[in-house]
């Protein structure tokens, strides 16, 4: 079975899509990245499979980062991010686990390693996890994150961005990426976004602003579809 389907299902990454490292001004891209060439790995069953009911291990019910306790809303611009998780055929990936994390409106993470002198918001933690529905849809209520400086010798700034981790149907479709906001001037200078050589691929990392009335109730809407590697990626439910 696999002999005929595997090569078609997982093509190599298209040119210009993967970030180029090391990134100047981001020393960690040097210290952490393997120096030796990667070896090609045959796609056996272990690579083509993945946890089928991952939601049993990772609870997928946190879709509102802006209101972590009743009556207390985080500070910042309230936004709604929605989109679909798709495979390379454009087909929905059902039951994918989507994790999102981000800085608060002042550009600070609620994390022991973020010691920057910017305020923490007592009403914002900054992470959520949901599972895609039958149409591959996900959605989060949150606030727009702030920009923040990268603490290196020649400081540069990260534009507002949201981290995504998507666990799809197999190891090969695992994706970790970041989402940016449209028309932010910092996008043009961001060393991480611009490590992606293909300008069209960079554009795909930028969310689309929805007409303001679309979400309603005071949430500014953004749409961001996420394409995972692989075709025919959504297996039939056993």
């Amino acid at each position, binding site marked *: 079975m696999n002999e005929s389907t595997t090569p078609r299902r997982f093509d190599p990454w298209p040119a210009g899509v993967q970030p180029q490292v090391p990134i100047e001004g981001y020393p*960690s891209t040097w210290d*952490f990245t*393997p120096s*030796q060439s990667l070896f090609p*790995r045959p796609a056996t069953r272990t690579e083509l499979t993945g946890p089928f009911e991952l939601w049993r291990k990772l609870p997928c019910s946190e879709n509102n980062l802006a209101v972590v306790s009743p009556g207390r809303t985080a500070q910042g611009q309230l936004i709604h991010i929605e989109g679909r998780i798709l495979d390379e055929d454009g087909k929905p990936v059902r039951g994918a686990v989507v994790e999102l*994390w981000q800085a608060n409106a002042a550009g600070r*993470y609620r994390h022991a390693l973020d010691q920057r002198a910017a305020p923490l918001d007592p009403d914002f933690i900054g992470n959520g996890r949901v599972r895609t529905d039958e149409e591959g849809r996900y959605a989060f209520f949150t606030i727009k994150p702030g920009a923040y400086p990268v603490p290196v010798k020649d400081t540069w700034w990260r534009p507002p961005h949201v981290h995504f981790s998507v666990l799809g149907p197999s190891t090969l479709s695992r*994706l970790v990426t970041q989402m940016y906001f449209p028309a932010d001037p910092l996008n043009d200078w961001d060393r*991480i976004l611009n490590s992606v050589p293909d300008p069209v691929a960079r554009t795909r990392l930028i969310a689309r602003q929805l007409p303001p009335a679309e979400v309603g109730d005071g949430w500014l809407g953004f749409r961001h579809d996420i394409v995972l*590697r692989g075709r025919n990626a959504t297996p039939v439910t056993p």
Partner: protein
Amino acid sequence: MTSTRFTPLSQHTIGPFFPATFFQEGDNDLTRVSADAPPTERGERIVLRGRLTKLNGAPVVNGIVELWQADSAGRFRHPEDPAWQEADPNFLGWGRAWTDADGQYSFHTVIPGGYVEGNQWRAPHANILIMAAGLMRPVHTTLFFPDFAEANAADPVLAVLPAALRPRLVAVDDGRTDGVRAFRFDIRLRAGRDEETPFFEV
């Protein structure tokens, strides 16, 4: 037959701030599907542990290690496995660990079974995915066990490596912990030719 291709999104680093609040008790315990689920009754329970390091052997702090493996009989509860219905219902096969200030990670799991695919035998193994600040793409490797020298010698993934590098993907005996055998698998992200862990292009 040609259809419209959608291009996958570019990968990015997780950065230094992957939320500690994402981690729940039991995330690194594969012997239970979730913290409140019954434990698996199949296979030999083990501890897998090691240290994740970067340039100059410095520890990777707040790195993420994800494990994916077959059950004790070499089956996956996934439709890609023709025998998925026989897979252990109390074994998800996936876990996630988080490295501490010294770069240490650990998992509780069972020794996976090997399996036949086509005309080849996969030796018992576990796939490992690592994410960390500065790693713009997750890195992938595969762990093998010292118990199965013969199967390891015939494994098609291990065979991709030059013979001199293969021992680096075989975990080492690390005594006993909590009454079960422990195996150590240190992962050197960047260490130069003589020490670096071999990683796979996926």
